[in-house]
């Protein structure tokens, strides 16, 4: 099954890190990506720019309305994702526990809808 691991953490924590700490954190994410790749679980993943760069679009009665900011304001923000292949939820949980943000924020695991018709 495919699972999307949504990475939630306090995005302001990056701003409080020293250059060395930020580098170490990047290193942890690279190691995590390598770990997922080595096990054949990695299907994709990216970090996201902070929510200050977010734009939310809605279409109502055919008219586009655009607002500044994320869809919902939360204490911890969506900061990135991994798309993984896992045997089942237990394996997905085990994989998600390797994502560095699991240690201070949290990872939301969402099974990807199977639209293959099987």
């Amino acid at each position, binding site marked *: *099954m495919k*699972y999307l691991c949504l990475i939630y953490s306090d995005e302001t924590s990056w701003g409080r890190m020293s250059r060395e700490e930020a580098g170490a954190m990047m290193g942890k994410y690279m190691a995590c990506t390598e770990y997922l790749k080595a096990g054949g679980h990695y299907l994709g993943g990216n970090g996201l720019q902070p929510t200050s760069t977010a734009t939310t679009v809605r279409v109502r009665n055919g008219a586009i309305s655009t607002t500044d900011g994320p869809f919902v304001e939360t204490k911890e923000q969506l900061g990135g994702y991994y798309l993984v292949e*896992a*045997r*089942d*939820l*237990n394996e*997905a*949980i085990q994989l998600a526990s390797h994502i560095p943000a699991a240690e201070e924020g949290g990872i939301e*695991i969402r*099974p990807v809808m199977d639209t293959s*018709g*099987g």
Partner: protein
Amino acid sequence: MMPPSPRDLREEVERIYRHDSRRVLATLIRLLGDFDAAEEALHDAFVAAIERWPQEGMPANPIAWLVSTGRFKAIDKRRRQQNFDAKRDQLTYAMSTDVSIEEPTDDVIGDDRLRLIFTCCHPALSPDAQVALTLRTVGNLTTEEIAHAFLLPAPTLAQRIVRAKTKIRAAGIPYEIPAPSELPARLEVVLAVIYLIFNEGYSASSGASLTRSDLSVEAIRLGRLLVELSAEPEAMGLLAMMLLHDSRRAARVTPEGDLLLLDEQDRTRWNADQIAEGLALTEQTLRAARVGPYALQAAIAAVHAEAPRAEETDWRQIVSLYNVLLRIRPTTVVELNRAAAVAMSEGPEQGLELIDRLLGRGELSDYQPAHAARADLLRRLDRREEALEAYAVALRLTSQEAQRRFLERRIRELRA
């Protein structure tokens, strides 16, 4: 020997249904990979048994027969559906090629029941869903019975179960016994679910009567099953604790349904068989390499069970058990219980000091038992006005009818 009459056979089928249908279900869920299909197959298998056993006679292994028949019926159903639904091709192929219907051994069935328990108590399900699903599929209660026990409308509970099953399927919660590395954490969830069911039955959190014994009975049955299947010391500890608490059921309430505290109970009415079983299990768990929180709570209940009269309770022993429990499970509720034990072993003043310090930290300010315990100590210290105030706070936080009557009785006695 006379062949059994159809009537006897029918009774036999009913007996097997009551006794073994959950085992058959557990294995069918694994074989079919789907809760709903398995429930349907279970039903079909029993219908077939009622039809065929009177003619063909009882099979040598009725459980194996029911599993095979249920599985065959489900495959047949899917195959027929496949005629309408070409997309199912692959699935049906996968199922029909695996025709070697193995005779399920007791071990295999035992493992399936354990798989079912761990699946129903998967931490990805909400506690409400864990409880409902466990009672419905591992236990023997109907949706209506569970709803009644939890004072919920049956449709609400049915919906909870449907949602849980949907999540199991959609999120890919596997039907398996956790790997050894995950087992301790997963077992903890299972034990918590069983304990929650027991507690709801033992000290119903709301409603008119104090206990809902059917839930406690079911929790003890589940606890027994878990011990039988896994022999984990903490599972034994939980079972021992439940048995020892439940042994006091008859003595805990007056015929009018009022609550009696430990020191007011007629100990001759405690259930001696349950105590004997609970004590033996407690002893066994305390011999384990690492003593867990349930084993310690069982040990505390055992000290009470061993005192023929309330005055003979070894409170020092209870305090030292709470000291150990507090080290491995440092919660404010454990601290509160320890404070109550200190009050008994060293005096009400010492206990009150601890409770006041606890309440000062604010975490327990809405916790009824904290105020009830404080009120009781003030009463014993003859600080009447303060006691009345504390009882009033406790009363305000009580939603349970028998608890409310108990506190009102204390207030009346103090005012007299």
